[in-house]
């Protein structure tokens, strides 16, 4: 697939998922925004990386059942209308806690 075709495929995936998933609730998770980016995957293939910005979890992370429900919805859509590129999903909270001080002493 040419780079132009890959860019078009990523745009189509983003648009399709925005229509079907953005704003939807999966258990406790609400999908706030979807961003599709192109990159090179672990096998050196051009791939679509889907970043899903989600409502912040109430605990350390989102309940796994809710996250699986969300992943299944994405998968069903992309397998039924394959973009012709490998795709990967990254979940992100709307608000991230500040980064740790990497140089500080201590265990974490």
């Amino acid at each position, binding site marked *: 697939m040419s780079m132009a075709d890959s860019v078009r495929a990523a745009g189509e995936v983003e648009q399709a998922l925005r229509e079907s998933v953005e704003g939807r609730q999966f258990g406790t998770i609400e999908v706030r925004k979807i961003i599709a980016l192109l990159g090179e995957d672990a096998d050196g293939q051009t791939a679509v990386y889907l970043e899903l910005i989600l409502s912040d979890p109430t605990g*350390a*992370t989102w309940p*796994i059942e809710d996250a699986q429900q969300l992943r*299944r919805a994405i*998968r069903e859509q992309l397998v039924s209308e394959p973009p012709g590129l490998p*795709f990967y999903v990254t979940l992100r*909270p709307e608000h991230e*806690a500040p980064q*740790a001080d990497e140089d500080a002493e201590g265990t974490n």
Partner: protein
Amino acid sequence: MQRVIRPAWLLRQADELGYRQAGPGQPRNSNLRRAVSAAYYALFHAIGWAIANQLLPAGSLEEQAGLTRSVDHGALRNVCGWIAKGESPPQHVADLVKVVQGDTVIVDLAEAFLELREKRHAADYDHLADFSKEAVLNLVDSARSAVKALEQAQAAGSATLARFLTLVSLKTAIR
């Protein structure tokens, strides 16, 4: 001391590195990266043990451990891609793959493997990869859920799991 690699121990390590019990705030980036790697290897080794057990159910621990050494990351990636991402398998196994695709438990497991493998690669090699505690702990939970589903399917004698493990074994062969 000789100790086998137990998936549960790797998952516990991933929880610790991901700061699960420690309250708000991000752990160190290097700890988040190692947590992703530990979670990936927990699932990889769980699949390896399941394959060894299927191929040699009466084998000794040493024999089964030896077999797990042959399980190939790339072969596993290919089979999981056929099952969870709609990638095209060879024609002669297409019907077999279709049967496995009908089992949500195995499809979830295959997708979890692919996501973990990709993130593990980024964690180890990509300086610009972005990791947050929330996302990393979700990956750890995905790995834990997949390991549990694998063990339950194996205990129940799942014929779909047997098909999945057979595809991985044949794709791998001995190396």
